[in-house]
């Protein structure tokens, strides 16, 4: 090996180190839901990288269950992403384990300028707090309501969507013909909450530390759905699985007249069947008009390497300008009060219809999540719902059995 070669090699190594050192190339890792990778957010990332030379955003997209698996593994080895989107519930769950960064100092510094928390719907703030500290910022605020095929209802003689359970049953039966179903229920348990709420069910009582899903009202609600499937033959058995898109696919194909869904299904319906005539109706009323609130929040893990930069990016994701762009293009509803009041939002029929449900939507799992046993209780409720829906077991008997087990778990 010649001396000239050795000198050249040494110069190349030193040069590389110098160039690399001066650029300070840094990567900000962001975990995101694959279904929410909107162009508006891609633009935010592009602008963030342009404004911060040397920084690259690694935007990793997952389905929620896969993201959770990866995130828990990341926590175990202490190698976490810098910013994480979560589907509701994870903020409190992980904050209680000391795995998330409290955001109070950031909010104190930037809250007034970004409008947090005053410009956010109140419950979208409280659901991201633990022990009076902020651990997450809501980016999407959603609710599920009745979506119906206007042509199928008109064919069956209905000019308007149902408003009560009785009317809903009547329409579902009347529109179930020729291999079509009046209603397509979802296999995912959270889609049964609107029925429970509409019948006045209280999920959890923090004073007695007990669940309330064994009440006669809860049994009546789930029995109503089960009877639509097994007795009225107006609804199919949901296809088992973690996939919540089954009913949307039947609806998009014109094989279901009504489904319960939220803004996340707007784009698949519009792109899947542009000729479909459909509309969004207010949530049904039985004892009361109600539905479940949900949505996505952003959180920063305590072990994140670049917390300050993660906060900078978070602020851009939740700005009013980004909210408007993401929502108008994708039909997603947002948590800012100023977003709901914006003329463009109010002029948009889809956003306006979903947005009106936020007024009576409820997120009653927040208090249960503070017990740290929410996941186990929800698993028991899922099994109970499955027993009632798939095995056609009497709702009251099953709910009493599983609520007793849930209360035992809570008392441990």
């Amino acid at each position, binding site marked *: 090996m010649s001396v000239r070669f050795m000198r050249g090699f040494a110069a190349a190594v030193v040069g590389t180190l110098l160039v690399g050192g001066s650029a300070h190339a840094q990567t900000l890792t962001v975990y995101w839901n694959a279904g929410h990778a909107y162009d508006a957010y891609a633009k935010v990332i592009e602008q963030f990288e342009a404004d911060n030379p040397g920084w690259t955003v690694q935007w990793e997209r997952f389905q929620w*269950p896969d993201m959770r698996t990866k995130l828990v593994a990341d926590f175990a080895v202490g190698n976490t992403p810098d910013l994480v989107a979560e589907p509701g519930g994870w903020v409190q769950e992980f904050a209680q384990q*000391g795995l998330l960064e409290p955001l109070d100092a950031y909010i104190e510094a930037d809250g007034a300028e970004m409008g947090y928390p005053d410009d956010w719907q109140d419950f979208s703030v409280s659901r991201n707090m633990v022990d009076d500290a902020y651990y997450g910022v809501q980016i999407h605020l959603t609710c599920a309501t009745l979506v119906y095929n206007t042509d199928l209802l008109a064919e069956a003689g209905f000019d308007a969507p149902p408003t009560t359970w009785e009317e809903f049953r009547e329409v579902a039966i009347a529109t179930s013909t020729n291999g079509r179903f009046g209603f397509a229920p979802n296999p995912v348990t959270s889609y049964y909450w609107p029925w429970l709420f509409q019948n006045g069910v209280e999920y959890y009582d923090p004073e007695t530390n007990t669940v309330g899903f064994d009440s006669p009202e809860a049994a009546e609600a789930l029995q109503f759905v089960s009877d639509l499937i097994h007795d009225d033959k107006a609804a199919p058995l949901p*296809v*088992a699985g973690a996939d919540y898109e089954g009913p949307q696919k039947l609806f998009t194909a014109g*094989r279901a007249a009504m489904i319960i869904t939220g803004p996340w299904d707007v784009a698949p319906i519009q792109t899947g069947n542009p000729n479909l005539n459909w509309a969004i109706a207010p949530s049904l009323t039985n004892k009361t008009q109600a539905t479940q609130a949900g949505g996505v929040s952003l959180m920063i893990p305590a072990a994140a390497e670049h917390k300050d930069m993660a906060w900078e990016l978070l602020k851009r994701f939740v700005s009013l300008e980004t909210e408007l762009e993401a929502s108008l293009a994708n039909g997603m509803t947002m948590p800012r009060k100023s977003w709901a009041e914006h003329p463009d939002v109010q002029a948009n029929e889809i956003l306006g219809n979903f947005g009106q449900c936020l007024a009576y939507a409820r997120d009653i799992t927040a208090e249960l999540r503070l017990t740290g046993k929410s996941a186990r209780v929800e698993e028991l409720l899922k099994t109970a719902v*499955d027993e009632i*829906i*798939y095995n056609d077991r009497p709702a009251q008997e099953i709910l009493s059995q599983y609520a007793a087990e849930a209360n035992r778990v809570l008392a441990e």
Partner: protein
Amino acid sequence: MAYALLLPGIAYFTVYFFYPIAVEFWASLFRGQPLIGHAQFAGLANYVVALTDATVRHSFLITLVYAVGTTVFTLLIGLGLAAILAGPVRANALIRAIIFFPYIISFVIVALMWKSLLDPYTGILNSVLITLGLPTQNWLSTPSSALPTMIAVSVWKDVGYAMLIYIAAIQGIPEQLYEAASIDGAKPRQIFTRITVPLLMPTTLFLAVVSMISNLQDMSAPFLLTNGGPANATRLFSLHVYETAFVQLEIGYASALSFLMFLIILLITFIQFKLLGREVAY
């Protein structure tokens, strides 16, 4: 020198096998979230709870049904196909390749394909039933049919591998044994049951052990096809452990369940060796 040569292997197994097993056992002695969050030492309490937990018992029983069902049908059908295709069949290389193909594709693809075929409302299988004037089926959405359907999908995927191994083993049996049996007047069925099957016992043992271990640990099928539903009808043990650890965040308890499964697999493998591990000489 010998130990030096063994060192890389020992290091590999220590880092990737023995250390994780030790960590898992350590985590199983805690209640809560060892490894990521708050945990309290619980001794063997998690094991006591596991042995009396009705959900664990249910998961274990259906896992046993799934593993035994998949293994038995895979081996029987694989042996049958091998017996046919080991001989001079026209285009047998192509037929073998077609049957083997599902084995080399990812279960994600298999699950997507079968979910589409089995969809009760838009699937091709029910369309065929309708065409034949037969009632349609909720293959994966009825508790009584979900597990058998899942076994059928797993057998479809694995049978090509069993067939290929059996073909290789059949072709290794000396031709003279068959000639001698023929001269003695043995019929084809007798030759198959008295010569081929007994001489394939080491192959059967290998396939049975590998298939049982793989099926007892299987999470892909229930996770991708049914997510354990409907009504927990396909909630196999590995999926139960996964949900306990990653959804319910009961990491200590999930570690205990996982360690119990490790011991059970060791026991079942030992029993298989005792039952099928006969010496074969020819």
